[in-house]
């Protein structure tokens, strides 16, 4: 996917001015936030569980090479194939190769963020395959030609009305006078369309929430069950996953599952949780004839060795964006690459570079809500600040900002000069500031005064008043 993160400011502005989007975004606090809070309060050991989950991931990452090799061995033992892909392009080529070898025409997919990251759909379509997304949200954005705006609710930016319009526009074979106003009728229509695709797909592609080293299983959770159809009906099943998805044991996977669903949707557990490994055995009534796992690096090894390594603990629950006041205001598309919100603000620059991704770690008030709710204890604001350090070091911060900061620092480091300057500046500022007509001649920051009245200083600085008070005390 071609990054558009450099246009963050522009696209955020458009998002703020888009009333339909703003209506749709109300679902974020009203849905996700409230549900997570409830789920957490119902499980007294929630915080202890998140700590366990963090330890599991940290441990797995510390011994990533060992667990990956163990995983590969288990997959092979169960009759599956393992492919290592250094980059997204490598992964795409391997996958299209498998599809070609299978003589495939139609490829069915269940929701997977990594395939968004490596732009798999575009690659497969360019290679002549028809690709169909089977998760309802993914299907919606596919027919609209969009990308996900949220990592677990890809179509969270759409209102029901928009969805109904799209269905009427795309599903032209269905009767025009059909009733399509309730969520249930919308889902049923999607089912009807997708069932046909499931049955005819030649290759099924799923992501993975976890890869279990102990058993070689891939674990995937959904609420629609579409991933199960994608991985059992077609003759060939491909699991696409990045290397940090590995956990040592089944027990570990289930521990993390307990915090994943609660953090993501506030459910105790997702509706469908499926462990799969290897192709159909003789005694199996169904299942694919051939299975492949694509293990993708695409920058993970580099991240692991960097000051951003903690971000690899991420389990893509989406809690950080759900609780982010910036995400809640502008939605996911403004971020301009696969991963929006605080996790995107840390991940995106590592993929597209800090020049392209400059705005993402900067457009944060550092309120800390993301870190507070992240079940994997990722210090997102601190990691964003590291990107800011890099940007500043590379001279990407605007000259205006740097000059303002240098001037401020020059005074702040020299308290005498500072107190002298402020004791003159502040009373003048107040005098002029009190007359609205004159105030516009003051060099006030536009980003502030466009929306807010400028604060009127009391008049004399605290240091001055304090000195006066002390002097008064002495005289008494």
């Amino acid at each position, binding site marked *: 996917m071609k990054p558009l993160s450099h246009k963050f*400011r522009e696209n*955020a*502005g458009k998002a*703020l001015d888009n009333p339909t989007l703003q209506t749709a975004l109300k679902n974020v606090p009203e849905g996700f936030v409230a549900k997570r809070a409830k789920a957490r309060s119902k499980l007294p050991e929630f915080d202890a569980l998140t700590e366990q989950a963090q330890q599991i991931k940290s441990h797995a990452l510390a011994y990533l090479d060992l667990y990956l090799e163990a995983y590969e061995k288990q997959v092979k033992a169960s009759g599956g194939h393992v492919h290592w892909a250094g980059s997204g392009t490598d992964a795409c080529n391997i996958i299209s190769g498998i599809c070609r070898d299978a003589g495939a025409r139609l490829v069915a997919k269940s929701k997977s963020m990594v395939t968004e990251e490596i732009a798999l759909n575009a690659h497969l379509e360019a290679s002549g395959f028809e690709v169909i997304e089977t998760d309802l949200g993914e299907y919606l954005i596919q027919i609209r030609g969009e990308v996900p705006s949220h990592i677990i609710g890809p179509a969270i930016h759409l209102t029901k009305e928009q969805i109904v319009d799209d269905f009427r526009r795309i599903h032209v074979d269905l009767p025009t006078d059909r009733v399509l106003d309730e969520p249930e009728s919308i889902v049923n229509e999607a089912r009807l369309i997708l069932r046909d695709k499931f049955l005819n797909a030649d290759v099924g592609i799923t992501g993975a929430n976890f890869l279990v080293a102990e058993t070689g299983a891939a674990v995937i959770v959904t609420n629609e069950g579409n991933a199960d159809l994608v991985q059992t009906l077609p003759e060939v099943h491909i699991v696409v996953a990045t290397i940090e998805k590995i956990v040592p044991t089944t027990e570990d996977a289930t521990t993390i599952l307990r915090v994943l669903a609660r953090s993501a949707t506030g459910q105790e557990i997702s509706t469908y949780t499926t462990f799969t490994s290897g192709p159909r055995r003789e005694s199996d009534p169904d299942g694919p004839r051939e299975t492949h796992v694509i293990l993708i690096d695409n920058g993970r090894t580099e991240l692991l060795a960097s000051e951003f390594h903690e971000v690899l603990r991420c389990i893509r629950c989406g809690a950080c964006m759900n609780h982010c*006041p*910036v995400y809640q*205001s*502008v939605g996911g598309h403004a971020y301009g690459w696969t991963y929006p919100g605080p996790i995107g603000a840390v991940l995106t620059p590592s993929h597209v570079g800090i020049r392209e991704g400059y705005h993402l770690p*900067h*457009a*944060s*008030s*550092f*309120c*800390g*809500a993301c870190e*507070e709710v992240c079940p994997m204890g990722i210090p997102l604001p*601190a990691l964003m*600040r590291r990107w*800011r*350090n*890099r*940007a*500043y*070091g590379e001279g990407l*911060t605007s000259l205006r*900002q*740097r000059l303002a*900061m240098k001037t*401020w*620092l020059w*005074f*702040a*480091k020299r*308290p005498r000069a*500072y*107190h002298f300057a*402020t004791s003159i500046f*502040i009373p003048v500022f107040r005098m002029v500031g009190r007359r609205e007509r004159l105030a516009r001649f003051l060099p006030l*920051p*536009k*980003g*502030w005064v*466009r*929306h*807010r*009245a*400028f*604060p009127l*200083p*009391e008049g*004399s*600085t*605290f*240091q*001055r*008043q*304090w*000195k006066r*008070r002390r002097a008064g005390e002495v005289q008494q």
Partner: protein
Amino acid sequence: MLNPAQTKSTASVGLFATCLVDLIRPNVGLSAARLLEDAGCTVDVPSRQSCCGQPAYNMGEADGARELARMTIQSFENYDYVVAPSGSCAGMLKLHYPALFADDPVWSKRAQAFSEKVFELVSFLTDVCNVRSVDAKLDCRATYHDACAGLRELGVRDQPRHLLASVKGLELLELKEPNSCCGFGGTFSVNYGDISNAIVEKKAADILSLDVDLLIGGDVGCLMNIEGKLRRQGQTTQVRHVAEVLAGQAGRISTRRAHNREKPA
């Protein structure tokens, strides 16, 4: 936890006034000093102080932030305690100074020792000085906004509410989302003014839905932001720092709204 009332007759407190209090709202500093003195501390305001360095730190100008940090530590490390009427600046002094010097063996030790003395004003009064109530009066309906850094970095949440409960005449109502960000974020409010505005608009709406006379908070930055929005919207809701209210220095709060409520037309 040390309790000055028990350990020695008077604890010396270096008041870190914060740059915004110094420039915009000196009354907060005077109120803070009064509260600390009432709690039995001797208060000093070293003149060798300006800004905690957070704007530089958050802009990625870590060297500049370190220089200010060194100056602040030198000015304050000889007091028993360092108190700031701001969760954000106290968080900077307490948590981020040690982080800034993580790779410097000498200063890292000094920053760590300094960090242990640093407190946000209200939590210092309750948790260290054992202040349980204040002698103040303010007739109005008010609500309290939890500023992010105080809340999430320092765990300041119940302390101001407890002390505010002892202010005579003050009726304290809870916001729907007291702990959601007001959108200030220092330079964020200027550099991404439109997004910051969308966030503070939600905060203002939450405040207005309560029909209160006064908004109270613990950080002048956030209060400036919220007040700026309310003023621009033509609202009459007043805004005060928690120190001003607790010290009985909040001035007159117009309760026109409350009267209107009591006497429907």
